[in-house]
């Protein structure tokens, strides 16, 4: 299973998570989002970039409650809450935002 | 609440038994099983430490693991009680906490 972008193919698992997170690019992110029936806008990019930075720093995709707490701290309570995140990513910020960010499925995401 | 410590590594290969003895408090129990049963032999370099602590700490060894390794009762250091599987279960239920030394 693979995403195809500009003639290159990038492997993903059965759920859609990238097999190798080094394959990620903004083009791939747009393709994954399209597969999830999501259009990338500024708000979604903000969360995706936050996740990529968090992973870069800690080598782990944060659990949802950790994500909301961290977003609340850096971007304010109007963005650091479940309602906001689920409006952006209806099937779950952990699942969809991490997938678009090219990260593995969050540990403890059940 | 006292602790049942369980050790399944030979003290001659790993430091699990030694570390366990270093952290077990008076009133605790230590059960040796699998390769941990080699720690129950008499005349070894750790037998002295066991007899020094025996009384304050209760020592047990799992009989089926002794028998499997050809270690009869006569080879076991003084102060160590041989138990069977149901004795193991009794020890778990009579201690508030079980801690494994892997």
């Amino acid at each position, binding site marked *: 299973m693979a995403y195809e972008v500009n003639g290159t193919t990038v492997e993903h698992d059965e759920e859609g998570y990238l097999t190798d997170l080094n394959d990620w690019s903004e083009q791939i992110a747009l393709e994954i989002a399209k597969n999830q029936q999501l259009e990338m806008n500024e708000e979604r990019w903000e969360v995706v970039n936050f996740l990529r930075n*968090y992973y870069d*720093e*800690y*080598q*782990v995709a*944060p*659990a949802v*409650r*950790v994500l909301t*707490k*961290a977003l609340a*701290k850096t971007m304010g309570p109007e963005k650091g809450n479940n309602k906001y995140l689920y409006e952006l990513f209806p099937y779950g910020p952990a699942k969809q935002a991490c997938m678009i960010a090219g990260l593995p499925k969050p*540990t*403890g995401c059940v | *609440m006292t*602790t049942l410590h369980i050790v399944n590594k030979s003290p001659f290969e790993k*430091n*699990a038994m030694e*570390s366990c003895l*270093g*952290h*077990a*408090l008076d009133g605790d129990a230590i059960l040796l099983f699998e390769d941990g049963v080699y720690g129950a032999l008499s005349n070894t370099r750790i037998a002295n430490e066991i007899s020094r602590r025996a009384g304050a700490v209760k020592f047990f060894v799992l009989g089926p693991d002794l028998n499997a390794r050809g270690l009869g009762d006569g080879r076991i250091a003084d102060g160590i009680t041989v138990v069977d599987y149901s004795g193991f279960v009794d020890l778990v239920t009579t201690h508030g*906490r*079980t*801690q*494994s*030394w*892997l």
Partner: protein
Amino acid sequence: MSEAKKFLYVNRKAPYGTIYALESLEVVLIGAAFDQHVSLAFVDDGVFQIAKGQDTKSLGVKNFSPTYRALGDYGVTKFYVEKDSLDERGLSADDLMEITYEDENDGFAEKPSIIVVTKAEMAEVMRDQDVILSF
């Protein structure tokens, strides 16, 4: 939920040589969702798990040491490290990563998570727990 219990994860193995350290870390991350009081203990070779300067690039395996620094976000704020184990291995607290948490009850002040304890103190920490998970 019933009353929160005190869980202690006891880490006694070096990282990379066996899967214990990584498995322990993953269980901590998963377990943190259950709102219990979780602390970590590093004893014997377990102290090598949080040594600074780990670099696994040429090994081709993931360097999971940065993840310990994320545990404060997960409410895991106590890393008990046994001094005897450090001493035996020629290490001091300076050889460990800087691991901190933000104290929500103190204006999010950043505080160190690592608490170096003697073997006798570690035995008391263990006695103080409801559940001990060994790795």
